[in-house]
């Protein structure tokens, strides 16, 4: 039995949230242009596990979303494009960046 936490039941007695459960918290999102590389510092994520990822806001066979990485409390994103010779094979898309805290 857990010593800490909260157990929440609905009107029928079903457990909606139990003591071992945890809820993922939304920390940050931003929309970034296709060719944008940038970063943001989120001081309050220090000590917490986060997941940071991107979703494209454009569709096309050769489109790629930004890569997103965390270093300390800094979240950075980098656009992606690539060539074969002088021919552009894939190119960066406008993207949504997300950061969630899950511990």
């Amino acid at each position, binding site marked *: 039995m857990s010593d800490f936490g909260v157990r929440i039941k609905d*009107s029928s007695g079903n457990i909606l949230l139990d003591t071992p459960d945890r809820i993922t918290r939304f920390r940050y999102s931003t929309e970034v242009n296709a060719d944008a590389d940038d970063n943001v510092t989120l001081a309050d994520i220090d000590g917490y596990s986060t997941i940071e990822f991107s979703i494209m806001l454009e569709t096309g066979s050769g489109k790629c979303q930004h890569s997103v990485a965390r270093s300390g409390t800094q979240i950075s994103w980098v656009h992606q494009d690539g060539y074969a010779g002088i021919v552009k094979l894939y190119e960066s898309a406008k993207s949504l960046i*997300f950061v969630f805290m899950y*511990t």
Partner: protein
Amino acid sequence: MGYGIKILNDNNEVQVDGEYRNFSEVESDTNVTINSYPELISITNTSLVPVIAIRPDTDSFINLFSYVYSSPNYTDFNVIGGIEGPYDPSYGVPPVVISTTVDWIAYTETPSKSTETHGLRIYNSDTDLVFDSGKKYFDIVQVDQIILDDPTHVGAVWNRPYEDITHSSIENPYYILSPNGFWWISGMVEPGKFAYIIFRIGLKQISSTSVRVGWFWYDGGWCGGAASTGYNPTCNLITCNVR
């Protein structure tokens, strides 16, 4: 924090947090057919940024490709599926998408309170609803980093690398896979004529407690020369609980 509550469990994990607005389920659907190129799936228009998690079927790879935003709302999302292959444009027909299905859930910041009359509801100092025990919350239970080898085509052998991920603590979860890769292989199929195939990275369910992350054939056509190159990132597979 002037308002709200923060509750920690035995593992010192934040169980409920009144400071950050949590994402809760606003819409879902199951057994949605994927047989277009890509498949456009509509959601109820929302000005709130959504997070959409998917559950693939066992028969073919898919991945969530993009959201559609038409100011001021998010209106749709695109899911891509694999094509029959190896695709050869010499046949004179466009690539054929392998028909499969997807289940999906959309989450946003909690826009309104539930109808539940028992439980716990927390607001922040801006009177935004940050937690409501009557809602189904976006809940990450596992994150795996996936590093796949590059796809190859040697002789008649196509190599599409994959990795199987097990999540024994949860059955039939939903997933987010990001970022996606892009790989291009082209070669001469007739004298002076070159064809290409594009690979993407997707998900295919193996069992209720495992999923395959792998490269799949996504597109093809004619091109001007031979190459094997692309973008092969470290992918995050985010496994999500469904409360």
